[in-house]
């Protein structure tokens, strides 16, 4: 990757910023299927990848795209797919496979309204719970959120870093507004960007166990073709990667898949706080809505209302501690979001009834106006 | 070729791995020389002298249980 745009300022769509972030993160494989409003990620990489030897492929459907990135990742390639609501539903089975087999990969979902075909060109945040629980079975997962083109760029890089570090699929959620808004992105010097690559086995092939029990719960999967001949399966398996019916081993495996994320939550979770220190009203908002929330905070402050904002950059694992800390300080929490209260529910749980939690949900395809948030805050005060 | 001929004149050594044999009878049914029989639900070598080393039993055993040398 050349350094030709180091430290430069560029105008980009959120979707394009994702593609650029992926390139910097070292992603060299993309498989996808056309879908609004995420297609620009694929289009951008279809131009860039062949020029640098990266691999692009348009698959026959969403399911195939998800399968292909898992296959490619097992050859050692950092792999990406991008989709939206209906496609995200179709990918769920193989996302579960990546969780179970612990294959790092990144899935970008530029959220549009649902259910079903819903609103292909209008924004929503209706997939935040699906991102957590969309695939069947107990599992841990990492879900990031971006609220601007700048964050789309940075969060894509972080998504790859977390995927490689924790050997897990990572989902990055944008909404249609973020995906399609063209705005300024500051691209830092590449030498200043942290890049994480998956561990390589230290032992010889004959001593190698792909799913060896380790203290950090993270497996070490050698790329196919490097002399480590092991088995990967979606069935419950033991340390060797072969299926097992041993209940003790099965129990341990599922526990570990969940624990792998939970025990590293502090490393994964990231929140941004705006004027929260003295706030009496706390807002919890993510994605494009957090931008309306930020301007609502400023308007409130002008009016003498002490509002503050907690913006989770990581939706899952959910930032429970941060929400509880806010709940203990403020008099009420407002959760504006482009769904009927999917994250408000988590906020309520995490705040342990310390304060009332007010939902401000919108599901008609319109963005949330800062004035709506201000009005609700005024009502609460 | 001379070597091969003399090798094939050696009597056949037919081995059956009883732990892996599932008793499907395929080897017995299709042996052209009736070398094999079933006994107690497993294949058994009955007339090794008649074996012509056609290898069909080894090739068709689904369980890697029979070998002919």
């Amino acid at each position, binding site marked *: 990757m050349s350094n030709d745009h180091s430290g430069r300022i560029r105008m980009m769509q959120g979707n394009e910023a994702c593609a650029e972030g992926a390139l910097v993160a070292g992603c060299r494989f993309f498989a996808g299927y056309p879908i609004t409003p995420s297609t620009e990620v694929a289009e951008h990489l279809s131009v860039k990848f062949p020029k640098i030897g990266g691999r692009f492929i348009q*698959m026959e459907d969403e399911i*195939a795209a998800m399968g*292909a990135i898992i296959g*490619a990742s097992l050859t050692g390639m950092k792999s990406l797919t991008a989709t939206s609501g209906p496609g995200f539903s179709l990918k769920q089975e193989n996302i579960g496979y990546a969780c179970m087999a612990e294959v790092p990969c990144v899935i970008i979902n530029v959220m549009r309204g649902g259910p079903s075909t819903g609103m292909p060109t209008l924004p929503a945040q209706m997939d935040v719970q699906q991102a957590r629980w969309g695939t069947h079975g107990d599992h841990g997962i990492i879900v990031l959120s971006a609220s601007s083109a700048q964050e789309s760029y940075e969060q894509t890089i972080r998504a790859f870093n977390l995927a490689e570090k924790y050997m897990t699929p990572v989902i990055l959620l944008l909404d249609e507004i973020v995906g399609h808004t063209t705005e300024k992105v500051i691209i830092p010097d590449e030498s200043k960007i942290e890049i994480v690559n998956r561990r390589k086995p230290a032992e010889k092939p004959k001593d190698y166990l792909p799913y060896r029990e380790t203290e950090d719960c993270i497996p070490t999967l050698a790329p196919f*073709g490097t002399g480590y001949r092991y088995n990967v399966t979606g069935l419950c398996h033991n340390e060797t990667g072969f299926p097992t019916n041993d209940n003790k081993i099965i129990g341990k495996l599922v526990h570990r898949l969940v624990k792998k994320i939970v025990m590293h939550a502090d490393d994964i979770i990231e929140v941004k706080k705006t004027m929260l220190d003295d706030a009496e009203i706390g807002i919890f908002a993510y994605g494009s809505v957090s931008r309306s929330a930020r301007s609502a905070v400023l308007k409130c402050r002008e009016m003498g209302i002490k509002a503050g904002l907690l913006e989770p950059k990581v939706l899952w694992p959910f930032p429970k501690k941060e929400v509880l800390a806010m709940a203990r300080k403020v008099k009420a929490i407002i959760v504006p979001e482009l769904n009927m209260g999917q994250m408000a529910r988590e906020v309520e749980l995490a705040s342990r009834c310390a304060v009332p939690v007010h939902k401000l949900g919108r599901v008609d395809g319109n963005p949330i106006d800062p004035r709506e948030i201000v009005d609700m805050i005024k009502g609460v005060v | 070729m001379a070597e091969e001929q003399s090798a094939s004149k050696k009597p056949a050594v037919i081995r059956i791995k009883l732990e892996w044999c*599932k*008793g499907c009878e395929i080897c017995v049914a299709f042996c052209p020389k009736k070398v094999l029989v079933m006994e107690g639900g497993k294949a058994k070598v009955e007339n090794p002298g008649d074996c012509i080393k056609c290898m069909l039993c080894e*090739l068709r055993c689904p369980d890697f249980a029979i070998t002919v040398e």
Partner: protein
Amino acid sequence: MFNYLEYIREKNFPHIWCAGCGDGIVLKAILRAIEKSGISLDETVMVSGIGCSSRTPGYVDMNTLHTTHGRAIPFATGVKHGNPKLNVIVITGDGDATAIGGNHLIHAARRNIDITVLLYNNYIYGMTGGQCSPTTPTGSRAATAPFGNIEPPFNTSGLAIAAGASFVARADVYNVANCEKMIAMALAKKGFSLVEILTPCPTAFGRRNKMASPVKLMEWLRDNAVPAAKWKKMTEEERRGRMETGVLMDVDKPEYTAEYEKLVTSLRTGK
């Protein structure tokens, strides 16, 4: 005697397949074909879907990937496109490849990506207990066709040919020598290759269709899977209900990963 032990994961034996299941016969033919073609186990990836045949990778000592139902071909496409140096073999069944995975099969054939698909056709869903599949013959009984199947079956090889596969063959486990030969030819082919292997499922298919014993099913294959040379001399009447075996399609055409590589080179050198 062929030394299978060099190629298998012996500790996983005896395998899980039923007595007389043809899957083990195919597995052995694959191992012999691999030896013949001289490909390195380190550089070979075997990918499978879900079903009885898809348990094959667990028994071979290579890079093995047991995926989700119907999806072996997309995973394999990712492996091959990710590292074109690897030899990629897909093990799949009639249900896995022609029902839930049918879309992937035709598109991989159309794309002509260099993977070898070994499709075990036993006319039934074995692992789930004998439900009818897209290849169950009309009139045959299945757990979900208790009065006989009223649907017409797929001609699986014909489907792959129509979709653009560069090599298609049919084989059966009675005629083991031909089975091994077809697999070896498919492995050697640069491009999408498919071998449809007719193989008995005594447990889920045979028992419902008056062929409960493995021997009966092998006899049925002996009498109904007809080598190409003989097939050519048969009348329409004689062909009815029988299947032609041997090479059904063999052409050279541009292969996907090679075409992609050409694109990369031309963009880099401006040529």
